[in-house]
């Protein structure tokens, strides 16, 4: 159990030092360079530096014999805590049963994500970017223990062994647990380049002993989420938000709200009208009693159908909006004569719908701010908070808590709900804690959706039926404020079906309007993999080829050994090609995202026209498997997440208003609909790649391909089942 209760929490923070920001990123290919030296200096002012433990910023060893791994990455369910702790414990040769994990404070210089240059968890990078860093931290601490023992016992360091947190010298029979050597070890400088184990020396990494440290706390109601923060004198706030994106407050009457027992204050903030109360239900009743007149002059008032019709028109190139060319090769202008395969896709806005609705606890005391919440991108939250308060990012302290799910939602680059809470706490002032609570309806209506998108795909095939020319037109709002909208066609140019074509034309139109969009688990891969994997099954049918064989031929031609290996493994385990009972069919899809390649075979039938999925056999190549059971868990959970979206999910706008605001109109996959998900991990000694997201984007095209096999009908839009019909 990850039990830190009752234990004094040593502050890692002193008042000195630098905070360094390098960039803003959220997924692959989403990095915007803001690394200018002057900006770094501005962000640095007022920031704090860790008071380093003798073993560095990632490891503490205490006299009780416990090893505490200080994790720079947020735990939102994806298992980052256990994977990174295992890296330290492996190299330290610690007793795994006496290893615990705590979240690092906000300090970009020390705790930055090495693939993003800022403190952030996202893009499935936790294990990959920390792979060397956290193993080195463990190895350095081990070397210090060995040197301490060698000095104390006057023996050669090379004769010393470490196992399960005990240092020993077999020659003399001397042993000492870590705790006994702490004082001596603390006097030794951590080695800069400690020797790391080779994978064949691992005794913990890659084994089934790498199990979560938080299961007991999470199974007894003891895990502390933002929603559970209780602080002396704390107030609870709710905010009345505009009914449409882009609307704002015209006027309001808070008199009735103020009469609600427990309501402390009512005031306007940039995002709406805040009602601050002594407890949650009073805040809600106060909000219900508000009278607000909204100014909708600049609001988005269109419905989803209108937006999609507009997108389709945009895609024809006849409107005013100009496309960005993301990739062009060969002579695509002359490549599409004769018989051409053409299709289109409409993919909906998707909400994250994490089980814990967004929330935050903020205290503002002049220019000092304390945030206690599940911060996912601490650096950005610090900067946005500093702007709202009029202070320096370094003056914003963050205590990061576990998130009750995120799926990208807490990685919003606008820090929307965080800034909202900060504005309220600033008005309250005096360092008094304010907890902002969003209801489910607030959470679902607040935007930050996976973008609505429309794709038009044209493929000209060669005599054997393989892609010779590929045109891919995307229409989707951009996730990033600047730079090319590559996310709309994430990774497309490297997909072997596209890469094999001589003539390629990838263009994206990025309309701008007030509906906020953001990163949704696996980001652009949800669109790219859906579109390409369903197109490829249709091309295989046109060519009269088995979809697995058709893919194999392409992978072979392109030398894509990783896709080939996962495809073969998934097909073998799934019994691809063997007969199923009448009414059932298998669908296959393969996708690469965040450096990880996944193949899935889904067994599907249609009941009243709706797909039912009973079994999903998956193979995954995520490099060296650090925590195999958590890789399986992410494949199970990622598949459920992707299947839930594919079956049901869509945020629909009606006259600009969000019409799916709770689980009755935005259904989530439930236990009776959960398929059996089998996970087969490809053995690998390559550096680990991402696992939090790659399990999500493959299931939708696998199901679409099964429906194609069953009915001959191609899928041109998601979800498969209209949510309004369901509700």
């Amino acid at each position, binding site marked *: 159990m990850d039990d830190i209760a009752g234990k004094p929490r040593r502050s890692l923070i002193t008042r000195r030092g630098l905070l360094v920001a390098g960039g803003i990123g959220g997924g692959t290919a989403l990095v915007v360079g803001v690394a200018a030296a002057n900006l770094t200096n501005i962000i640095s002012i007022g920031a704090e530096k860790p008071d380093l433990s003798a073993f560095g910023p990632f490891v503490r060893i205490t006299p009780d014999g416990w090893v505490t791994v200080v994790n720079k990455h947020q735990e939102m*369910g*994806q*298992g980052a805590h256990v994977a990174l702790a295992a890296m330290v414990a492996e190299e330290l040769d610690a007793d795994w049963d006496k290893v615990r994990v705590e979240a690092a404070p906000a300090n970009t210089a020390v705790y930055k994500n090495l693939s993003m240059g800022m403190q952030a968890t996202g893009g499935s990078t936790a294990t990959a970017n920390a792979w060397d860093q956290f193993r080195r931290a463990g190895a350095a601490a081990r070397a210090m223990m060995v040197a301490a023992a060698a000095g104390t016992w006057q023996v050669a360091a090379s004769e010393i062994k470490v196992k399960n947190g005990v240092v020993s010298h077999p020659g003399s029979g001397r042993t000492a647990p870590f705790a006994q050597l702490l004082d001596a070890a603390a006097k030794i400088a951590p080695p800069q380049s400690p020797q790391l184990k080779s994978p064949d020396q691992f005794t913990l990494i890659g084994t089934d002993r790498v*199990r*979560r440290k*938080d*299961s*007991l*706390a*999470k*199974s*007894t*109601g*003891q895990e502390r*989420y933002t*929603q*559970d923060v*209780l602080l002396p004198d704390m107030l*609870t706030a709710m905010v009345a938000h505009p009914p449409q994106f882009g609307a704002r407050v015209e006027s309001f009457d808070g008199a009735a709200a103020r009469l609600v*027992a427990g309501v402390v204050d009512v005031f306007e903030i940039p995002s709406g009208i805040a009602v601050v109360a002594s*407890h*949650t*239900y009073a805040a809600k*009743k106060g909000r219900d009693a508000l009278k607000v007149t909204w100014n909708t002059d600049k609001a988005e008032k269109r419905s989803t159908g209108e937006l999609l019709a507009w997108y389709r028109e945009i895609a024809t190139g006849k409107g005013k909006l100009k496309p960005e060319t993301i990739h062009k090769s060969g002579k695509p202008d002359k490549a599409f004569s004769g018989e051409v395969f053409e299709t289109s896709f409409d993919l909906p806005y998707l909400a994250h*719908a*994490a*089980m*814990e*609705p967004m929330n935050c606890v903020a205290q503002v005391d002049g220019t000092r701010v304390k945030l206690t919440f599940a911060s996912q991108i601490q650096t950005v939250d610090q900067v946005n908070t500093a702007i709202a308060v009029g202070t320096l990012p370094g003056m914003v302290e963050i205590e990061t808590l*576990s*998130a*009750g*799910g*995120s*799926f990208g939602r807490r990685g919003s680059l606008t820090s929307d709900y965080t800034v909202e809470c900060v504005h309220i706490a600033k008005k309250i002032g005096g360092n008094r804690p304010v907890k902002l*609570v969003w*209801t*489910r*309806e607030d959470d679902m209506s607040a935007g930050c959706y996976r973008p609505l998108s429309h794709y038009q795909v044209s493929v000209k095939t060669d005599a054997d039926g393989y892609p010779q020319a590929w045109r891919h037109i995307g229409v989707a709002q951009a996730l990033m404020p600047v730079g090319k909208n590559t996310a709309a066609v994430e990774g497309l140019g490297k997909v072997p079906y596209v890469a094999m074509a001589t003539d390629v034309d990838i263009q994206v139109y990025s309309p701008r309007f007030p509906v906020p969009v953001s990163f949704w688990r696996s980001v652009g891969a949800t669109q790219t993999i859906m579109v390409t994997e369903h197109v490829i099954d249709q091309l295989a049918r046109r060519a009269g080829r088995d979809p697995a064989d058709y893919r194999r031929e392409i992978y072979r031609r392109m030398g894509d050994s990783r896709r080939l290996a996962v495809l073969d493994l998934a097909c073998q385990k799934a019994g691809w090609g063997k007969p199923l009972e009448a009414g059932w069919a298998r669908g296959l899809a393969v996708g690469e995202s965040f450096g990880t390649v996944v193949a899935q075979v889904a067994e599907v039938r249609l009941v009243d026209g709706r797909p039912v999925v009973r079994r999903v056999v998956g193979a995954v190549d995520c490099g060296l498997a650090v925590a195999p*059971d*958590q890789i399986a*868990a992410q494949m*199970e*959970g*990622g*598949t*459920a*997440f992707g299947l*839930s979206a594919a079956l049901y999910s869509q945020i629909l706008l009606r006259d600009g208003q969000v019409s799916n605001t*709770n*689980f*009755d109109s935005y259904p*989530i*996959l*439930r*236990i*009776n609909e*959960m398929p*059996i*998900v089998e996970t087969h991990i490809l053995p690998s000694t390559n550096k680990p790649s991402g696992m939090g997201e790659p399990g999500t984007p493959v299931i939708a095209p696998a199901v679409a391909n099964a429906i194609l096999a069953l009915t001959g009908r191609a899928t041109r839009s998601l979800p498969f089942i209209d949510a309004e019909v369901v509700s």
Partner: protein
Amino acid sequence: MSFTLTVNGVVHTVEADADTPLLWVLRDSLHLTGTKFGCGVGQCGACTVHIDGQPLRSCTLAVADAGDRKITTIEAVSGPEARAILAAWVAGDVPQCGYCQSGQIMSAVALLQEIPRPSDNDIDLAMNGNICRCGTYMRIRAAIKAASQEVRAGRA
């Protein structure tokens, strides 16, 4: 208004509006934060507690309607079924983000108390009011079956 509630075997007197959902009384007044807020409309099950042994959604039960019935939350759920469920949940590393798991466990314990050897269909019926956004359903099902075996073998 003043209400007297029996929660986890302790009698509490709380001040609240009569229409206050029991969920907020548990969380804000009694500081029993293991019971979670997820949807507020009885759709997700994160707020599931036992009322006289029956699993109910505390977000849709007004405090005035709780009466003198015995309320049990995740903090105090006990007995062989609860012990077995907890052990199976940990052994199977069921939780991911964990936010829904209090509610899942309250539903699962009530299921085993009612049906010691649940079929897959029994599990579907008892558990499909509890959403897990992380999709831990396979492990929930496996843990319920493992716990059922332990209880029936007298090992819990």
